[in-house]
């Protein structure tokens, strides 16, 4: 008798079958999957090159089933630039945290975006330094408690949290910049669409592409996975509005933000 069961959910070919080291409730794993699904859907796994950051996702190369470089802290966009300039036929992406990209690697990301480098950056913003144990990041919210701002972030001394996609959108060079989140199934679907669009633009050699993904860090937020999802929704999203901030298709930005 023929089985009626059909497999409708499998591991993307672009992911290995290793178990990740991410904490329970961490959304790094979801983001990995979305990137892998995009590579699968576009059929580019065999010509993809990822660049891992220094941060919790430093071992991303163990989970993606494609060639990978491991960059110094913050320098992934420089590595991606060097690689892609020599191999414009390959699909190159960096995967970076907010300490990596918005603090130590600020110069590299801005200049890569400004040169219009044809690679894709997956920017994982969890408002904290995860790997080193929960220190303040440039994206930490005002009043948010971390191990290096135990009284809560004092913006009079440390400045306001940096909105990266808005900052990059201010550059004149065309780019595709969108902020997404992965805390609900609906948001995950939108995030996947944005990531895939970024890779598509890269394949067409159109522009620099960066997707900022709001991500959870229950461990360093001192929250349960469920509380973390609520905090992302109630606190992070109001400060980091979701949506497309720049798109070569519509030079008019849809939310008016700069």
């Amino acid at each position, binding site marked *: 008798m023929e089985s009626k069961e059909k497999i409708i959910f499998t591991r993307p070919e672009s992911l290995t079958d290793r178990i990740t080291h991410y904490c329970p409730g961490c959304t790094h794993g979801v983001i990995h999957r979305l990137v892998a699904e995009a590579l699968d859907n576009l059929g580019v*796994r*065999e*010509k*993809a*090159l990822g*660049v*891992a950051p220094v941060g919790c996702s*430093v*071992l991303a*190369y163990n989970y*993606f*089933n*494609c*060639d*990978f*470089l*491991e*960059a*110094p802290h913050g*320098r992934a966009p*420089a*590595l*991606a*630039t*060097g*690689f*892609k*300039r*020599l*191999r414009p036929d*390959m699909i190159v992406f960096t995967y970076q945290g907010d300490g990596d990209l918005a603090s130590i690697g600020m*110069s*590299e990301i801005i*200049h890569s975006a400004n040169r219009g480098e044809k690679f894709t950056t997956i920017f994982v913003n969890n408002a904290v330094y995860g790997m080193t144990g929960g220190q303040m990041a440039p994206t930490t919210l005002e009043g948010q408690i971390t191990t290096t701002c135990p009284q809560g972030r004092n913006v009079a001394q440390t400045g306001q949290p940096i909105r990266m996609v808005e900052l990059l959108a201010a550059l004149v060079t065309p780019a595709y910049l969108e902020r997404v989140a992965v805390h609900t199934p609906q948001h995950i679907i939108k995030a996947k669409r944005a990531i895939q669009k970024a890779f598509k633009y890269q394949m067409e050699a159109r522009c620099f592409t960066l997707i900022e993904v709001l991500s959870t860090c229950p461990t360093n937020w001192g929250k349960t996975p469920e509380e973390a999802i609520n905090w992302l929704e109630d606190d992070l999203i109001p400060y980091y509005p979701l949506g497309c901030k720049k798109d070569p298709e519509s030079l008019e930005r849809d939310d008016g933000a700069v």
Partner: protein
Amino acid sequence: MAKILMKGNEAIAEAAIKAGATNYFCYPITPQNEVAEYMSKRMPEIDGVFLQGESELAVANMLFGASSTGKRVFTTSSSPGISLMQEAISYMAGAQLPVVIVNIMRGGPGLGGILPAQSDYFQATKGGGHGDYRVLVLAPSTIQEAVDLMMLSFHLADKYRNPVMMIGDGMIGQMMESVEIPEKYTEPELPPKTWAATGARGRDPIIIKSLYLDPNLLEDNCSILEEKYDRMKKEEVRFELYKIAPKNKLLIIAYGTMARICQTAIDELEKEGISAGLFRPISLFPFPEDAIYKEVTKKNISDVLVIEMSTAQMCEDVERAAVGKKPITFFGRTGGIVPSPEEVMEQARKLTDKRKPKPGKKKA
């Protein structure tokens, strides 16, 4: 190819192209800007890659990415810029990536000046960045040698999968001399670059990294590197001797253009009846320590004179090589001031005078 008159920086650039390095990343800094200017003209002609990065920090990391493709890549800079590149150099050494870096040295520390110096010897030969690694360091003394060593650097970088640094004082970059650059660099065959990231088509993914969280695996990687450095010490020691003779009492040791000035001094000293020879290290890592020991311990040698455009940096390696067998005197100038042949001769005269028996005094 016939000899042509060329500025050092431009000759270095053309030599790299002839060695197949048509991928160049840079950030402006005096006194090596002519390389970038030359490359920015030449790369579009031959479909190469020229990119001026936002900083030397970024440039060195661009080299990391570029070298991962398996193609030949290089950069040129000067002292403060090389300091900024140390992070990526350490990572590239750890990840075993071949890359060529040229340092046309200027005086430091700090912003220092823009005149010639040899004060980055420690930085080049003793690591520079963090971790247990070495870069292979070559030091030309003429423009022709800069051309030859530049091409060799790419071969050695590939042979050892390790960063190679060519260091020259500012004069090497700025001087004009007649040079011969071959149409194509001929070199011994190298194994295919199966380590390069070219896309995981029909093979497992290639990961280029320097991270090993397991201490045993990190030690394994360090051991692989150490074996390479040991092999370099056996196979890549390079040096040149000038007027080495049994009648010499004095051995002068100098590298780069400083060695040429010492040659002039030696020729002049000869006319005064002072016979001295020159030992010129060409590879600074590996340092020619056995050969220096051999020359220093020769019976006829009573003094060793080390001359540098720095405050006795290479001199420490000479002392290490000579293991106290003969007295070593150091003379150097800093700040971009180049010791003149007369200054070198003065040092030599002092040493030979010291050894002359004093008139009227009988030996006990």
